[in-house]
């Protein structure tokens, strides 16, 4: 069973993510994760391309859980929200 830290570590190393939030949204069973990823690799890419980057980085982890949702921001988009 993947741990939240595994998602975070992988997304930071593979996608140069400057900010990652991983929420265990399973309510206890550890089978559902929701992530927020902020990476400059997303700059100029549409949603589909961003999701494919994230999916590729954590592919084996996703297949091990029941549910995986993601929100992806470029650093500029993230800054505009906060």
């Amino acid at each position: 069973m993947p741990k939240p830290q595994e998602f975070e570590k992988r997304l930071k190393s593979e996608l140069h993510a400057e900010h990652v939030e991983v929420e265990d949204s399973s309510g206890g069973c550890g089978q559902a994760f929701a992530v927020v990823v902020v990476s400059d690799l997303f700059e100029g890419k549409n949603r589909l391309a961003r999701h494919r980057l994230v999916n590729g980085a954590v592919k084996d982890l996703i297949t091990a859980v029941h549910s995986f949702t993601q929100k992806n921001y470029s650093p500029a988009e993230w800054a505009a929200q906060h």
Partner: protein
Amino acid sequence: MFRSILRPQFASARQQFFRFMSKEVRQSIDAAVKSAPVVLFMKGTPESPACGFSRNTIQILGYQGVDPSKFAAYNVLEDPELRQGIKEYSDWPTVPQLYINKEFVGGHDIIVQMSEDGSLADLLETEKVLVQ
């Protein structure tokens, strides 16, 4: 055989059946993707979704006003080959998966985000798949 399910509330919906050879999964999925302008691969059926993400996606397509006569849904739980094959076909790890005019649009997160920012409405309009 992947059986297409259409939403019963979609008045003009007609049931479509497709017969596929088991060893030709890719061609079968090709045919499914081409079977209607809007194609959703989901868990369960539109009237009885087997997963919250599939349920929510169906609801979004419904309130956006997708034309039922231009819509087909495939239940991946009915067919293990489809369930595994669609992930490889789309290079996408999760279900539901939405295709519009043979183009992969995305999964649940993308559909929700597109619905919220209005880009889904724009896409459905551009692709001429809404109820007139």
